[in-house]
């Protein structure tokens, strides 16, 4: 272990935190993943809307695509043209953002056109002002993830044996899975159903009854980004940042070749600690807030 390596690990944790936050906000602007099912259902239950419908697979595959794309571009520039690492990363992230723009618009067009019998219109102004915002967030995500992969392979010792596109793919799947399970709940469970009491959860009866009107005018996807950037985004960032930091910390402190058992044991300790903390959180939340006010006992199925 050296101070430089530990500094790099800290930098990777910081990058991952930013990446996680931007990933979640990107998916919220596009209503991807978890909230998407409600946006999709809304028109079908008679609520056409002006909300972006970016159905590019789930979040894990789509983020794996952006990160892998950014990483291959970076890899090509570094290995083939001996470009500086940072420049290669920037070029890679730009390509990923362009790819994202194409996929996002095609999904919005396609999903809306496939709901024509429910009178779901395609609004071109939404495409014009929401897509760049999605692309910008994807740029930040893939830039940070590519930089993490570049640090792991080219800077941090011992160098990671995998090529950076594979590491990018794996981190992309990870960040998508974390965003999908941590941050999206904030949008899908709360923001879309703001007219219900907080913490009620989603009743099947409410499916598709999402909020379509804003404080003034009609709600759009940028409003959702404003809401999600306050809590859902940072939470996702924290989740991904901790994952990257803790994972790399244990292999930097303990040499993964000569001290492998210690590194593995450290990982197991992390998992146990987090589970214990989760349990504590749940118990303390139940104690503090009690059952939901409208709860009238379990309904027999």
């Amino acid at each position, binding site marked *: 272990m050296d101070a430089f390596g530990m500094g790099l690990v800290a930098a990777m944790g910081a990058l991952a935190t930013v990446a996680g936050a931007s990933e979640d906000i990107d998916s919220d602007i596009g209503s991807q993943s978890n909230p998407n*099912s409600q946006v*999709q259902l809304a028109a*079908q239950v*008679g*609520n*056409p*809307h*002006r909300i972006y419908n970016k*159905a*590019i*697979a*789930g979040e894990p*595959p789509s983020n*794996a*695509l952006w990160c*892998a*794309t950014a*990483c*291959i*571009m970076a*890899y*090509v520039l570094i*290995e*083939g*043209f001996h470009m500086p690492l940072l420049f290669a990363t920037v070029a890679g992230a730009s*390509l990923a953002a362009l*790819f994202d723009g*194409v*996929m996002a618009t*095609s*999904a919005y*067009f*396609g*999903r*809306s*056109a*496939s*709901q*024509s*019998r*429910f*009178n*779901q*219109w*395609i*609004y*071109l*102004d939404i495409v014009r002002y929401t897509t760049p915002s999605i692309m910008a967030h994807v740029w930040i995500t893939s830039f940070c993830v590519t930089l993490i992969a570049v640090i792991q392979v080219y800077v941090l010792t011992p160098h990671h044996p*995998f*090529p*950076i*596109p*594979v590491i*990018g*793919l794996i981190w992309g799947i990870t960040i998508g899975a974390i965003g999908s399970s941590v941050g999206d709940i904030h949008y899908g469970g709360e923001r879309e159903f703001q007219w219900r009491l907080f913490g009620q959860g989603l009743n099947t009866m409410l499916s598709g009854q999402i909020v*379509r009107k804003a404080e003034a005018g*009609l709600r759009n996807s940028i409003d959702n980004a404003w809401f999600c950037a306050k809590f859902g985004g940072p939470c996702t960032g924290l989740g991904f940042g901790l994952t990257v930091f803790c994972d790399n910390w244990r292999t930097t402190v303990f040499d993964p070749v000569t001290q492998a058992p210690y590194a593995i044991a450290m990982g197991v300790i992390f998992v146990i600690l987090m589970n214990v903390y989760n349990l504590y959180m749940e118990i303390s939340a139940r104690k503090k807030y009690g059952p939901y006010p409208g709860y009238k006992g379990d309904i027999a199925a």
Partner: protein
Amino acid sequence: MDQLKGFTFTPQQLRMYGIIGSVVGIYLTVGLNVLTGTKLFSFIGSIAALFAVLWGANAIRRICSYGLGTGVPAMGMLCTGMGCVAAVFGLNLAGRFGIEWAGVIITLIYAAIFGYVVGVLCNKVMKFNIPIMEEGLTDGAAACTMAILAWSVTISGSLSYNAIIADVYNTGFLALIFILGGMALFHPFNANLGPDEKQDRTLIDGMMVGGLAMIGVGICSLVTLGLAPAMLTIVVGFAIWYYFYIWYFRLTTRDAAAVVGTGLLPPSAL
């Protein structure tokens, strides 16, 4: 805008186009590269992949019309996973028997059997009970394998097992082929999911993503093949992407309830 004429293909037609297009395309790529002693014709491999994409996207579309909402990407990833394994296995087997030229055929047959077995497992063991599961997964796995093989040939410029392992698998470019190839298969149906989905719009979306994949693969081949063949792939890929994106947008305009510059909700919903 004038009314666009659509098209419909039967699964049998698409299977035929997919098999012939991808196999002939891959052999044409390798043959022309060997004949001319250059790697300039590698871009034909990606065009061959488009036929396989058409075939595979329709297979995914058929399986997933049975109500697999969130299962659409899963089906695509399953087929891509089978494809990655089948491509290596087929090429390796052909290399070991000293018949590298037959690698494509062996890979195709192996992938079809692989897909069929997984389809039987899905229906009989996991009880999916989707009537066309076996047929669909056979198509999907075979199409995805051919697409992966075709893109791999574009990156390495040859069909030899060692070259493809060195250029595609060891460099990590397989990550892009895996995910972008999967996207080309499942994104079309996933993006067009809904009661008014149309086959022509879905397939054109698949071709559009195929063009995008060609650009990505072209960028990969900058390292493995050099500037000229790679730029050719990128430029042709961009042209294909642009052509099909415009076509896709026009089909969307044809099918949508309305395409408006801006405006409030439809009068019925306000």
